[in-house]
């Protein structure tokens, strides 16, 4: 076990509350000022099977960016969990089970191992104060006790999260936690090498990237969202459904993704900021609509939350397989922006930034995220979510005054930068115009005149120049000159960052080039960042290596080494370190 950190894992059946326990425990750890990350692993089923939740908590100033594959403290809500994770336990690791758990089948293995098996009457305690659904609370309290983590942080989370269910539930859970904590403290005391403790930290949030993105849309002034449920996009739709009323947003769960994207386009056309999203399959269905937005120059933000494909693939697993799709989906030629945030705060700002860019250039902005981001809980300093850093830029609009002075308003006026000033349809006697999916004149009416066609196509594609200026170069982490440069995008950021730090702490020399804005491809910046690199390794959660491919083809930098993972599971720093050694 590394000093001052603990790797927890909670395992049980779907339906046993593995995920909510994990997320709640993350919250408690966060409140204690610790650095925390929590990642669920679950199957495409509602009940049964084997799910688990991994948490890494550290008493340090530096954030933790990746869970660990080894487990220090395992909360096994059933026997299967012990069987599944025994071989991941770190030396002298702790396993917490209910005393009634039947471990006979793996007794010999347990005996051979050096794990500390704690058989605790957690269910009994739960039932005593409430009911057996509180077993998880008891287990968590035991874990807290043996890890040297003060139960008071759990108490505060219980209070806040169960408040809606009434005092009785709050009190019962707290009683369960207290009794289990006391019992474990008495009986076992500290079982890890170093108490987790707590620390003074600035105020922090503990949240999913999907939540951060959804919050960003609210703060960014998005007024309309239409969508259809699809993992891992659904939680954005659900968060916003819950936050629409009272926050000035209309959210529509539509009959299908085609309706969703077209409703969104209708709303954006009518003048409000609007957004939609889905995962790959639903996104495919939206592509014709995306093409409509392009032709009508309607600002459109689409969140594309990746999961392993093709087709249904692995709906509850993660992947980075849709980068090229984001870049090239939808027929016809038009410029677009593809962003790929990599932290909760980046997701938060990406939402607002996407809304701004979409309106400034009256264009499509795709924000790429994935299942790992959607479901991972990260603790981040609250100050990183600076609301005042979010400004609203709505691009070119024509005023009533200007309209008064005009002969005729041309919605699709040919301009130098390709952007034509907008107006709310019908908001002025002269603001009455056609918007069509056919090729059209400056006034919006259909035209097949070859000169008109060339003017409009050129105009629309000319926006690319301005759009390019929005693109940020890849981030550079670590020392300037290093023997190893890891190249990442999206959710490989965290694990690679931890890997880099460990390498450098151990006398190695590594740095990172992390892509944040994917398209238009920042060719020059990439060349600058990578042309002197000694050993480049591109790390991606896919098989074909789209980022490696883009770097090779667009920036003309040969990529000799790649680490690709496509088993549906996220990266860890241990995995990266192991692969680098190979």
């Amino acid at each position: 076990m590394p000093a001052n950190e603990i790797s927890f894992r909670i395992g049980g059946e779907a339906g046993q509350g593995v995920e909510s326990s994990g997320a709640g425990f993350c919250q408690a750890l966060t409140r204690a000022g610790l650095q925390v990350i929590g990642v669920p692993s679950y199957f495409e089923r509602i009940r049964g099977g084997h799910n688990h939740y991994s948490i890494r908590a550290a008493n340090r100033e530096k954030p933790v960016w990746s869970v660990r594959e080894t487990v220090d403290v395992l909360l096994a809500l059933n026997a299967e969990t012990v069987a599944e994770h025994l071989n991941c336990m770190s030396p002298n690791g702790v396993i917490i089970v209910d005393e009634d758990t039947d471990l006979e089948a793996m007794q010999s293995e347990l005996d051979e191992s050096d794990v500390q098996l704690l058989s605790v009457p957690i269910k009994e305690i739960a039932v005593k104060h409430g009911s057996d659904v509180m077993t998880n609370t008891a287990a968590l309290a035991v874990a807290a006790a043996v890890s040297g983590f003060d139960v008071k942080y759990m108490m505060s989370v219980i209070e806040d999260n169960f408040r809606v269910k009434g005092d009785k539930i709050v009190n019962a859970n707290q009683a369960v936690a207290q009794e289990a904590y006391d019992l474990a403290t008495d009986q076992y005391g500290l079982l890890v090498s170093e108490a987790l403790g707590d620390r003074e930290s600035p105020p922090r949030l503990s949240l999913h990237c999907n939540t951060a993105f959804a919050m960003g849309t609210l703060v960014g002034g998005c007024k309309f969202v239409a969508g259809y449920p699809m993992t891992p996009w659904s939680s954005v739709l659900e968060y916003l459904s819950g936050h629409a009323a009272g926050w000035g947003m209309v959210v529509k769960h539509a009959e299908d993704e085609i309706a969703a994207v077209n409703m969104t386009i209708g709303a954006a056309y009518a003048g409000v900021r609007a957004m939609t999203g889905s995962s790959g399959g639903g996104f495919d269905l939206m592509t014709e609509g995306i093409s409509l937005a392009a032709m009508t120059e309607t600002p459109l933000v689409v969140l594309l939350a990746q999961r392993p494909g093709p087709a249904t693939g692995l709906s509850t697993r993660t992947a980075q397989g849709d980068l090229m799709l984001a870049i090239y989906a939808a027929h016809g030629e038009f410029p677009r922006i593809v962003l790929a945030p990599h932290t909760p705060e980046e997701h938060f700002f990406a939402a607002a930034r996407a809304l701004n860019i979409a309106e400034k250039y009256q264009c499509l902005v795709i924000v790429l995220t994935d299942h790992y981001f959607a479901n991972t809980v990260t603790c981040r300093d609250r100050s990183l979510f600076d609301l005042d850093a979010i400004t609203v830029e709505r691009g070119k609009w024509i005023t009533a005054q200007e309209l008064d002075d005009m002969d005729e308003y041309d919605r699709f006026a040919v301009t130098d930068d390709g952007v034509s000033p907008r107006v709310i349809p019908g908001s002025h006697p002269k603001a009455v115009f056609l918007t069509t999916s056919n090729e059209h004149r400056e006034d919006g009416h259909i035209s097949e005149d070859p000169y008109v066609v060339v003017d409009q196509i050129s105009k629309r594609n000319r926006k690319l120049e301005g759009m390019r200026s929005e693109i940020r170069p890849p981030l550079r982490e670590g020392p300037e000159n290093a023997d190893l440069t890891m190249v990442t995008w999206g959710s490989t950021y965290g694990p690679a960052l931890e890997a880099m730090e460990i390498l450098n702490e151990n006398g190695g020399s590594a740095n990172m080039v992390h892509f944040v804005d994917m398209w238009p491809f920042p060719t020059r910046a990439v060349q600058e960042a990578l042309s002197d690199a000694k050993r480049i390794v591109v790390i991606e959660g896919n098989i074909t290596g789209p980022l490696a491919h883009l770097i090779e083809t667009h920036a003309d930098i040969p990529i000799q080494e790649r680490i690709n993972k496509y088993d549906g599971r996220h990266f860890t720093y241990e995995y990266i370190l192991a692969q680098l050694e190979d």
Partner: protein
Amino acid sequence: MATLQEYAVDIRPTWCSGCGDFGIWNALKRAFVAAEYDPQDIVMVSGIGCGSKMNDYMRVNGLHTLHGRPVPVAQGVRLANTARKVICVHGDGDGYGEGGNHFLHAARRNMGIVDLVENNHVYALTRGQYSPTSYKGFKTSTSPFGVLEKPVNPLGLALSQGATFVARGHSLDLEQLQHLIVEALDHRGYAFIDVMQVCVTYNREMLYDWYREHTYKVDENGDYDPSDWDAAMKKAMEFPGGDRVPTGIIYRTEDVPAYEEGEPTLEAGPLVDQPLRTRPWEDYQILLDEQM
């Protein structure tokens, strides 16, 4: 008060002479005038097809979208701006073929839009393939031996899903059509009008004579009660299938609130008129508080 002139644009329709879309065009403009709407007030959302070019030939806020998709677009427009009257205009292939799913859900959703389908029983703009309303046996380039399927029954479909305004007009009776549109514009929720439309080029079996022989008005005897759902369903099932085509307001109720009436955010007025950030700036800290 708006005049017909105000709806005019300087563009000649590209429809064939004799096309029923001319009649619908005139009826729409007259209805807007009769219902006292200014061009500014109206957003006409259309699909793709001959008749979907309607908004290219009028001065209204027009949104000519994709084949099969005007209904969701119109719903988005409506939710974003309830101050506008949103009217959807599209063909039978568009509305009942490619866009069938949106139709069925619009009927039960009851959003306050008018949905006018120009039903010429054929895919005209793509040059004469059969459509979902083509009768069984109709021979076209994609049905050289005749259509094998029963035609869609649009009125029956709308009624079965709880539509609150269901009407049928045809492109040869302008007066009735204008009346139906005016009533639809005045309806609280989803107002559906199936307009049987002459296509002189690709559906030469349903021309003037055919209409004269087959259509009748449900209220011609003054004893039809459009609030009687069972009677309405009976009327709906008369055609396609039978030989007589009932026209007029087949069903209507004003008792069902429109979708947008139940949407809490719209209580504060049209979305587009609300500030981007509805709440005081400090309140947005709550979003962060919730994640602590």
